[in-house]
């Protein structure tokens, strides 16, 4: 955990140690038992309702309502997008610079806070509202254009073609490595570690994109794929035919996520990492398992395996059933996007209070980024205000996010099943899928209850 406190607390801080679970100054209270029970009950009711009440024939995929032409033109404008990309690139460079050259104490250096809280947690609400924002903002794309221009390589095609069967696997690996770095690596809070990780990540993906073209980012950049998956739930999307910005149904967004091998791996990595974060905060885990690199890595791998097994069991009938719809790429990968709402719900449950409280620390530390005693924003002397949101609100947001995620996921799986399979078969594939989702959701409720 990092320390929150005034930048000039007067106590010479020692090298900051990091405790078993991720970053942050405080953990959430366990949710009250009554609320947890209500959430679990709601999950079951939703599951049975989805089976009993929802449509029994393929739902016509909507095209969405186009935004007003003026608004769409502004949002699509190339100068706006370029400007946002440049700003993000500048912010990324600033974070890396502060990480390398700023105060070595994580309590005084904004790099770990900006990376783990503002970026990694913030990407979820940003994508839920606005769609795949990181695809627009990703500074690596801008850097890739520059590198490709310098080396006279076509940024679109690259040097070699990316094989289709690679799919999303590089993104899954990226996310798994990030999860390990965030949750198990002992020096994860050190500003220099964060800066080095960012540089290494950028280096690897820039090199890959130079070779395979900018399509690499669509499939290989873990953060972009995360933003695309969560952004599929946003009310804002692009129409398939002409790419026009539209307001659309999240179910249509999920159905439009491009399927490719490795998407299951991405979802497992996301759910597993967040689940391990929650697991490592429970009293039971803290009492039984000593903190350390080996136990952290083991716990994370265990979480990946558990989530993978649950998903595998949920889709075993899908794997053995031939799809009927023309072009129906069936199989478990077609149901991977349906877990995106559950991943978003997990993220909200575990990280909402972190964003609200520890997210303030970035604004506080940004006043004195290099530890020179400056006060650029006038916030240098402040401390985190823990009164901005109460514990009951936090508990309601946690459980609400989990239950709402389950609702959308169940509806999406239902939608997908009826699109891919004939009616009788579709219903049969839903039972194990719903059981898997109930398992994951009640597991999520259990994690915030046992915190």
């Amino acid at each position, binding site marked *: 955990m990092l320390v929150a406190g005034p930048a000039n607390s007067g106590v010479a801080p020692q090298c900051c140690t990091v405790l078993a679970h991720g970053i942050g100054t405080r953990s959430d209270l366990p949710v009250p038992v009554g609320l947890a029970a209500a959430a679990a009950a709601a999950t079951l009711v939703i599951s049975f309702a989805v089976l009993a009440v929802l449509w029994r024939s393929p739902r016509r995929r909507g095209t969405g309502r186009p935004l007003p032409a003026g608004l769409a033109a502004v949002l699509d404008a190339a100068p706006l997008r370029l400007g946002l990309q440049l700003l993000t690139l500048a912010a990324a460079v600033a974070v890396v610079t502060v990480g390398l050259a700023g105060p070595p104490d994580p309590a005084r250096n904004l790099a770990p806070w900006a990376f783990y809280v503002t970026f990694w947690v913030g990407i979820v609400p940003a994508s839920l509202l606005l769609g795949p924002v990181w695809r627009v903002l990703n500074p690596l794309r801008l850097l890739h254009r520059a590198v490709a221009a310098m080396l006279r390589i076509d940024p679109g095609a690259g040097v070699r073609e990316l094989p289709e069967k690679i799919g999303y696997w590089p993104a899954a690996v990226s996310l798994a490595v990030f999860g390990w770095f965030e949750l198990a690596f002992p020096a994860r809070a050190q500003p220099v570690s964060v800066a080095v990780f960012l540089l290494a990540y950028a280096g690897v993906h820039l090199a890959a994109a130079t070779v395979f073209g900018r399509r690499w980012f669509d499939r290989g950049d873990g953060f972009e794929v995360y933003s695309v998956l969560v952004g599929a739930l946003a009310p804002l999307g692009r129409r398939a035919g002409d790419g026009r910005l539209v307001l659309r149904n999240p179910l249509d967004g999920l159905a439009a996520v491009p399927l490719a091998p490795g998407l299951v791996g991405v979802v497992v990595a996301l759910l597993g990492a967040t689940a391990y974060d929650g697991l490592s905060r429970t009293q*039971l885990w*803290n009492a039984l398992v000593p903190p350390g690199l080996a136990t952290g890595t083991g716990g994370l791998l265990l979480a990946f395996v558990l989530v993978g097994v649950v998903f595998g069991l949920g889709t075993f009938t899908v794997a053995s059933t031939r799809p009927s719809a023309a072009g129906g790429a069936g199989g478990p990968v077609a149901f991977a996007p349906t877990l995106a709402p559950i991943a978003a719900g997990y993220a909200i449950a575990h990280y909402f209070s972190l964003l609200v409280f520890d997210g303030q620390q970035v604004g506080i530390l940004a006043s004195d980024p290099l530890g020179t005693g400056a006060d650029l924003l006038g916030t240098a002397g402040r401390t985190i205000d823990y009164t901005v949101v109460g514990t009951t609100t936090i508990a309601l947001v946690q459980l609400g996010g989990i239950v709402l995620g389950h609702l959308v996921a169940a509806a999406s799986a239902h939608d997908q099943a009826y699109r891919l399979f004939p009616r009788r078969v579709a219903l049969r594939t839903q039972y194990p899928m719903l059981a898997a989702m109930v398992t994951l959701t009640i597991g999520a409720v259990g994690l915030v*209850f046992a915190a």
Partner: protein
Amino acid sequence: MFRRPESRLAGLVAALVLALAGCAAAAGPATVAPAVAADGTHRIDLAFADGAVSGGPARYAVAVGSPVEVVVASDVADEVHLHGYDRSSFVTAGATTTLRFVADVPGVFEIELEQRGARLAQLEVS
């Protein structure tokens, strides 16, 4: 009875819920209520020796607004740090040190020996 998929699903879900309820009920060690002095101060006594806190790191529960006193006896020199509240105090080898504060922020906070990274206890304020 378990032919029909619906009852299979119901059975699976019921078993699952029971299992999870069981796990949650046994969700780990219960929290400890610290002793309350005559003036209403909640006192938490911790002893750090031979590389670990005696009795293992426990979770102490106090109500929001309670005055709290954390007394740490350590056989090594280090800095006792309460996260979130950001209270710290140095302790010399063989001596004790005390953190005094009012627990006005709800949540779960770590108390640790900063340099060693050794967890001493958790404070649950609700």
